[in-house]
């Protein structure tokens, strides 16, 4: 267990700058999820923390100790790889105990630790198998077991569930959450799946193109996104964005929806003449709300508890409406709906910044 901090961390591969100055504080025992689209530098950042990639600039400290230049083995971190990286020629037992044995731990003690980890992960029956005789979920657990036995200060996970099928993914997600509570260890978890991020994290760090877009609790990111990217990335189905402009009287109007007026309580408000986007989540549409919209439904999906009506599919600013009542809607229905401006977020369409 340890806290971890990144300060002005940068990474370049030759002339290509991948991580552009990341500052981050991670508390002792926190479960932090790095989330972002593919290629944004999540793995690179995680590997820099692990010591598998050198740090071009900035410092990394773990438990108050500057580890920026330390060898991976001296940082007190353990990592679960996306590929699991189980040694194919070793049994499960040897895979889990390999690191301990190589560091000179007596055989009996290694045996004991392996047995302990195996029973915690329901692997006891499988100790003599080779990795290729295991299912995906079992391999995943062996990889986790290999991390646990080392009793690291920080656990690092790089997309550990992405090779599993949907059902197993949910199950392993719960298992990892359970592990986090039991071990009370600091964990950093990388994923491109915002649902995994929302469900697991104490703190989510949204990355884009090597920069931290926003860091905070799942609900803070959901309820108060700092910019267009975070607003669109967190939440499923994603937030709707409608084009808006400010008229000469300072009133925000929805240009694609009959110039409907949206009265927002803004601080300084937008600069005049900017293109704006108004964000509203699917579940915040409903009848009899202050801002009225008339829309034509393209498609309806019934998911049981909720139904989603899709509007303007194929246009540049489609809408998704969540409906829990009055669901007798079909393709072609003209729907009267609306939203509460207090639920809406205003963004500068060009810079993506939130306008408050």
């Amino acid at each position: 267990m340890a806290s971890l901090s990144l300060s002005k961390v940068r990474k370049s591969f030759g002339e290509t700058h991948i991580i552009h100055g990341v500052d981050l504080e991670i508390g002792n025992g926190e479960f932090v999820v790095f989330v972002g689209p593919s290629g944004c530098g999540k793995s690179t950042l995680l590997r820099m923390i692990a010591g598998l990639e050198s740090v071009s600039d900035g410092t990394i400290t773990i438990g108050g100790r500057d580890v920026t230049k330390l060898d991976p083995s001296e940082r007190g971190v353990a990592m679960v790889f996306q590929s699991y990286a189980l040694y194919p020629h070793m049994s499960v037992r040897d895979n889990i105990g390999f690191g301990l044995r190589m560091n000179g731990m007596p055989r009996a003690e290694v045996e004991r630790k392996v047995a302990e980890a195996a029973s915690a992960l329901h692997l006891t029956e499988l100790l003599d198998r080779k990795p290729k005789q295991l299912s995906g979920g079992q391999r995943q657990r062996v990889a986790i077991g290999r991390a646990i036995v080392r009793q690291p200060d920080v656990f690092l996970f790089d997309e550990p569930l992405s090779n599993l099928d949907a059902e197993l993914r949910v199950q392993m997600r719960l298992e990892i959450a359970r592990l986090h509570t039991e071990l009370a260890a600091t964990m950093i978890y990388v994923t491109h799946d915002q649902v995994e991020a929302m469900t697991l994290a104490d703190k989510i760090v949204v990355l884009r193109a090597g920069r931290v877009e926003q860091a905070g609790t799942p609900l803070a990111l959901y309820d108060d996104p700092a910019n267009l990217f975070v607003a669109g990335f967190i939440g499923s189905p994603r937030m709707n964005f409608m084009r808006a402009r400010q008229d000469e009287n300072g009133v925000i109007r929805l240009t694609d929806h009959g110039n409907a007026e949206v009265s927002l309580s803004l601080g300084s408000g937008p600069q005049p003449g900017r293109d704006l986007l108004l964000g509203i989540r699917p579940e915040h549409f409903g009848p009899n709300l202050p801002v009225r919209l008339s829309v034509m439904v393209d498609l309806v999906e019934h998911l049981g508890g909720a139904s989603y009506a899709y509007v303007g599919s194929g246009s540049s600013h489609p809408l998704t409406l969540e409906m829990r009542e009055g669901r007798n809607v079909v393709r072609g229905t003209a729907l009267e709906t609306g939203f509460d401006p207090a639920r809406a977020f205003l963004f500068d369409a060009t810079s993506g910044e939130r306008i408050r």
Partner: protein
Amino acid sequence: MTARSDRPGKALSLGLKHLAYLIIAFIFVLPLWWAIVSSLRPNSAIFADIFPFTPKALLPAPFTLEAYGGIFERGFGLIIANTMLVALVTMAAGLIVNGAAGFAFAMFDFKGKKFILSAIIISFMLPFEAIALPLYTVTQQLGWLDNIAALIVPSVANGLAVFLFYQFFSQVPKDYAEAARLDGVSWIDILLRIYVPLSLPTCISAALLLFIFQWEAFLWPLLAMPSQQFKVIQVGMAAFQQQYQTIWNQLFAVSVITALIPIALLLPLQRYYVQGLAGAGIKG
């Protein structure tokens, strides 16, 4: 039902096919077979059934092992032992040196890596004759002429073997090495306990390569051992042919032993050997 009526026809064509294979195989092994047969006949009967030819020429009759007894009396056993010594030491040292070099090229990035790799690749494309003279000069200056080190040391580092190892090790997912590094496993243990067990076919290929290279060496041992006190098998065979021009059955026995020892090594391992060489080209 239809299957049954087909069967005789199919069996016949299958039989013909196998007969054809058998004939082709026979043509290929014929020279070797004839050498074996001749080495098992008394010298006086070598050409007995050939002019005129009778099928008996292909059978070792009359049968005798005197040729083999004869060549060992003339010291051929020592020559085999010499060659084995040179080839096995080269093989063992070569596995270590070339394996470690291949591992370094696959694992680490360093200045001039591409250049050195290209030089290594070129080195195994150069014919030996091109470097024989410079190598001779160096060996002479080291004072290694007529020393067994002159046979072993220059052959330990082998460009093709380095390349084989490099090629294989770069295909092993880097995650294994990284997982082990996080666990504090030393590079040498990563090589010996993870990469080597995963690369057994490559190790066997490289070992055979090194062994056969030494087994076939002729020009270099001839140059490097001018006094001919220490003879290896190709040189020994050539000398034997010059010396005992008419003892045909013994000449054949020498050839048979020279050819069969590497074959005896290759056959049980050829599965790995072919795998290793093929993998070097295809998997990218």
